[in-house]
């Protein structure tokens, strides 16, 4: 890509963007300084229960949700965040590291990221992180990002479909001490360390200019996430974090004794390392997290009680779908002054 982008062309592009809905190809408004090595991107991703498909079986009698009864999916807006990072890396060079906090099963979302082009996946897993609210979660993720080390961009989905809070992204930004751009729709300009990005403000949009590093929370309208690439699926489908090996072995060697299972686990671990298919796995000590800020003790907000939605209605009138039925209803509504 020619680093010496014509300045007039860039100005024209910028004025087009200001006046019309024009989506220019990325490289028309990116100016790469000669010698720049690209951008290091960290993407926070989450495995969530599919809350749009909750049936009766998912609700337990005490009103709580049986998470294990729900299929687990890749949080939709995080996929858009990943896509944004991949586009930056594809155009400008650099790296895309994805981080997730969760039980070992969450590695599935890390693999989904590798299938789409991410360079590295990191699992943060620790029982002591359980019951973390958004503040504790953002603390743990910010410690993980600091442990990853160098980053120019941190991308997050705007919100997760189980909590719907949209709080973790901004809270990570505050803990990293970097500016945030939430409700991100698209890049306007990326010029060395200076970023201009457009965000949705509800009744319109605005364009902000920040100096990197910055954290960006991405809307689902920002882009079309690419599908998994068949070649990368073949390459990475056997990637595992250490915590997953034990379970794989318990299934594969169901009748073996503990000694045999341990030996097999150790062998598989070595194989994964050799083939560079071992996902990084860190616990709270690895990321130097202060336990007081994690889990229940690090969570200011606590759930007092939970109730499942009860649908009842008093004063319900069933109206037959006939001329007469409808006319009687309209009559009532006019009489009580609701209509007319």
């Amino acid at each position, binding site marked *: 890509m020619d680093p010496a982008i014509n300045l007039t062309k860039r100005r024209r592009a910028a004025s087009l963007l200001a006046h019309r809905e024009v989506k220019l190809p990325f490289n028309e408004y990116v100016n790469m300084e000669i010698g720049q090595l690209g951008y290091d991107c960290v993407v926070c991703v989450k495995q969530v229960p599919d809350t749009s498909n909750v049936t009766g079986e998912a609700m337990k009698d005490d009103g709580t949700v049986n998470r294990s009864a729900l299929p687990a999916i890749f949080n939709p807006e995080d996929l858009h965040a990943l896509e944004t990072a991949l586009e930056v890396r594809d155009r400008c060079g650099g790296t895309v590291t994805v981080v997730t906090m969760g039980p070992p099963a969450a590695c599935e979302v890390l693999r989904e990221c590798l299938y789409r082009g991410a360079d590295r996946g990191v699992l943060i897993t620790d029982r002591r992180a359980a019951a973390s609210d*958004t503040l504790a979660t953002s603390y743990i993720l910010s410690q993980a990002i600091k442990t990853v080390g160098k980053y120019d961009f941190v991308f997050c989905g705007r919100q997760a479909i189980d*909590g719907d809070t949209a709080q973790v992204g901004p809270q990570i930004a505050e803990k990293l001490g970097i500016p*945030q751009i939430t409700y991100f729709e698209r890049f*306007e300009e990326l010029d060395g360390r200076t970023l201009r990005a457009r965000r949705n403000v509800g009744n*319109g949009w605005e*364009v902000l200019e920040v100096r990197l590093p910055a954290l960006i929370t991405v809307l689902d309208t920002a882009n079309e996430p690419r599908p998994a690439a068949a070649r990368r699926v073949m390459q990475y489908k056997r990637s595992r974090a250490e915590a997953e090996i034990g379970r794989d072995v318990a299934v594969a060697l169901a009748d073996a004794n503990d000694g045999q299972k341990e030996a097999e686990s150790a062998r598989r671990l070595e194989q994964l390392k050799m083939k560079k298919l071992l996902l990084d796995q860190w616990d709270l000590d690895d990321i130097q997290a202060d336990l007081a800020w994690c889990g229940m003790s690090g969570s*200011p907000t606590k759930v007092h009680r939970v109730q499942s939605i009860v649908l009842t209605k008093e004063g319900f009138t069933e109206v037959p779908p006939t001329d007469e039925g409808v006319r009687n209803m309209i009559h009532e509504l006019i009489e009580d002054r609701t209509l007319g």
Partner: protein
Amino acid sequence: MIEPNRQGEVWVFAEQEDESLNDVSLELCSKARELANQLKVKMGAVLIGSNVRELSYRLIAHGADRVYYVHDPKFENYRTLPYARVMCELITKHKPQIVLYGATPLGRDVAPRIASEMRAGLTADCTDLQIGEYKEPKTKEIHKDLLLQVRPAFGGNIIATIINYDRWPQMATVREGVMRMGEPDAKRQGEIVDEKVTINDFEDAVRLISRHREERKIDLKAARTIVAGGGGVGSKESFQLIHDLAGAVGGAVGASRAAIDSGFVDKAHQIGQTGTTVRPALYIACGISGAVQHRAGMEESAKIIAINSDKEAPIFSVAHYGIVGDLQKVIPLMIKAIKERA
């Protein structure tokens, strides 16, 4: 964080843009006034901007005892870091018990940043706020006069009550239309407290380059009657029936997310948790199944008529009148009945 206390005020972050207050801030003033009365403390509003001191009087009329007005030309347009800095300094200085924010893109941008810096609890998208007590399950210690923060969770399938008893202030965001805006009382007395907050270079570094506001084309919130169509309408052509019925009753046209996603009508008509929340005198739901996210946006309507060919549709659980039938046949019957009576 600040230590829990019993004399702190109940605050509202007053969102203003282009010298006018966002409706949600006034709705929150009414709620905050109620909470402050229950706690027997004062209610304050925080107003940040440039040359918008006049707006304080409106906040006072809606229930504020005090308006903390923070003026600086740098605050003319909202930016995350300066506004967060102001709120953190004022919270540290005045130690309110509760701070409420509108769950607008602005509120959802700034509130978590403040919560993170203050290491305080924040609950998003509350549908109800009450004062109550909480007993710790392990220690049996009772915490009185807490803010009970009620919100749907898990995709709207459960209602959770959240509390925060030790990392104050207790903060919550609330979407527009959820709390009822009270009548302003121009005779109410209150004071304006001018505060000064300086921001550093890092906080000043983000620049606003340009901004584009779209005119709100339809005012659903002000409509007395709304006729809404859902996925069951079937096509953009059939959606004309919705427009026709709306014309016959003199109402506004609404839609569920399914109808928007299918392209039957423009997004501006969307009613529901991610659209507009309405409480008209009459809401006619046509071909709308009644998913929780939609119900959240209209279940407070005074009277609800539901037309759906599926008798199990959840919309019937919130309706006053339910018609199980084909809307293509029922709507013309309704239009005819209305015209006959006119």
